[in-house]
């Protein structure tokens, strides 16, 4: 049963990724702009152009190019970046940790903040506090992530400059990273200067990405909590002496969480999509920032690699969301 589910899951993932690959491959080649002409100095000869075209395989037909590329991918070879002249897989995997740290940090902030506001709202249901929280989250939600980014830059980068507005870490810090997970490695190796600097660079982009999602979580979770809090088992818990906060956290939260988990699953992929612009805004050295450069430079292999990685990431997230349903709802567990 479980094996069958996993098999179906893997197959559909493969189909999705293949579809994404075809679409991206075609789109970026059909779109105007030629990577070769951008690489060559002015005054290059027709022969130079033809040579380079042949080198990168751009002289072949589109289907042929695709088959060659796909063959490489199946052997773990995603091609070579035209502008950076290094293997796409190495470049992309090198940047992935930065984006993962940023988006997981943003997600954590969103869940913590949104969850906290939802619990307070449910605790204070029917009072002015609830109305105030509703209005606030409505307002927060109406401002998109990159505008929050600008707001934060103004607030904590310019007016009250306590956070770093550009990059991923203070370049003066002397630290030999073995992975590109700066934050995690800083924590694990007990280097608090590294942790501090990474956080100082990460906080604003993470908050920008987190705020709209936090507002969504606050609204949806509070609504579902309120629905659960009239159920008989919560009444029984009150009779048994548990405080309202305790009833919310122990009895209601898990029952109310399913729709929010589904929302987080969908919105997390949007959040990762949002890193593209937010990383650019804060010159944060992640995948999104690299993706923009790759598109500007028509670095076709690199664009493909990044998009494929994003797509793979999204399917993994969806899988995790589905698994969490089973964890939260015991009725789905057997069978």
């Amino acid at each position, binding site marked *: 049963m479980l094996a069958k589910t996993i098999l179906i899951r893997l197959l559909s993932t493969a189909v999705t990724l293949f579809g994404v690959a075809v679409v991206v491959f075609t789109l970026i080649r059909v779109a105007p702009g030629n990577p070769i002409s951008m690489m060559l100095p002015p005054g290059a000869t027709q022969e130079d152009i033809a040579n380079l075209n042949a080198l990168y395989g751009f002289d072949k037909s589109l289907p042929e190019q695709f088959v060659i590329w796909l063959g490489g991918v199946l052997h773990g070879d995603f091609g070579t970046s035209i502008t950076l002249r290094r293997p796409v897989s190495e470049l992309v995997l090198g940047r992935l940790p930065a984006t993962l740290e940023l988006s997981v940090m943003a997600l954590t902030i969103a869940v913590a903040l949104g969850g906290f506001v939802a619990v307070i709202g449910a605790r204070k249901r*029917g009072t002015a506090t609830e109305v105030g929280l509703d209005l606030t989250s409505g307002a927060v939600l109406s401002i998109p992530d990159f505008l929050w980014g600008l707001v934060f830059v103004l607030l904590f980068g310019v007016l009250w400059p306590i956070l770093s507005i550009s990059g991923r870490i203070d370049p003066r810090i002397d630290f030999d990273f073995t992975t590109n997970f700066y934050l995690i490695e800083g924590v694990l190796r007990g280097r608090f200067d590294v942790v501090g600097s990474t956080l100082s660079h990460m906080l604003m982009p993470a908050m920008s990405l987190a705020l709209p999602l936090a507002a969504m979580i606050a609204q949806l979770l509070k609504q579902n909590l309120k629905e659960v809090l009239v*159920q*008989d*088992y919560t*009444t*029984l*818990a*009150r*009779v*048994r*002496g*548990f*405080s309202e906060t305790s009833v919310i956290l*122990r*009895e209601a939260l*898990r*029952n109310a969480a399913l729709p929010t988990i589904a929302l987080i699953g969908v919105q997390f992929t949007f959040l990762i999509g949002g890193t593209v612009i937010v990383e650019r805004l804060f010159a944060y050295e992640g995948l999104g920032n690299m993706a923009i450069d790759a598109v500007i430079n028509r670095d076709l292999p690199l664009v493909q690699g990044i998009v494929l990685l994003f797509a793979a990431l999204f399917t993994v997230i969806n899988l995790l969301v589905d698994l969490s349903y089973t964890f*939260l*709802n*015991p*009725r789905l567990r057997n069978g």
Partner: protein
Amino acid sequence: MTSTHPTAQTLDIIKLNVRLANGRRLLRDVSLTLKPGEVRALVGESGAGKSMIGKAVLGILPNNLDISEGEIILEGAHLNAMTPSTRRKTVAKMSSLIPQDPLTALNPVRKIGPQITDPLIRIHGWSADRAMKRARDLLDRVHIRAPERVMASYPHELSGGMRQRILIAAAFAPSPRLIVADEPTTALDVTVQKQILKLIRELQRETGTAVLFVTHDMGVVAKISQQVTVLFAGRVMEDAPTQQVFEAPSHPYTQALIKATPTLNAVTKSFSPVPAELIAELHSDIAKIDAAYDAGDRA
């Protein structure tokens, strides 16, 4: 403020009034007492306010309702004079609820075991071992086979009758002085109803817990209670020992209720519903009394 009461009652409700924000009274001057170990049935038609009384005692009235006047004294403690958190703890220490619908009264995402032991550990301050043992013993007492397995199950894996037995075990687990049982058999099959009723009666006798038993079935009243309070439209119509109520019901509404109960008239088959004229008459009487009251309120 006096926090103790001279009488030795388990529960003493004195002239309790519950109102809506608009002033409408859902309970009017309800008084009743429960001696230790006594079972008092609370009967009346749907909407009479039976559950309301239980909720007022347990402190779980809906937000739009208010205890406007009256006293509730539980084991000598004046509940209405307490802060909400003290009241909550006092009520939890001394009383339990057996709910109406076992299907909705257990948390679907939590295992049975912790749902019984949690309050014992976290509210009553027992050790985990003691709570586990108590839960096991009581599940065994309510005829649940393989208590260990049941405690590791989720509610959806168990039948309605089993869940109600679990809720009964949970209610008796902290050895409360008072149990409010709000129509604990209404949601169950007829055959299961009998077992559940028997179980509550047995456990009540063994433990000497006082029970406020809400029901609309005079047949159940006859089986389980020593005292009866007959309620109509939020008013007490009759308050008497059960035997007396059946032998010589003093109020016409009580007489009609008895006549309306099939199980009590099975032999003669002469049962008939409470006449609509009687209900209308009672309502109009009450309206007159209310008008007089309200005039008094204004004066």
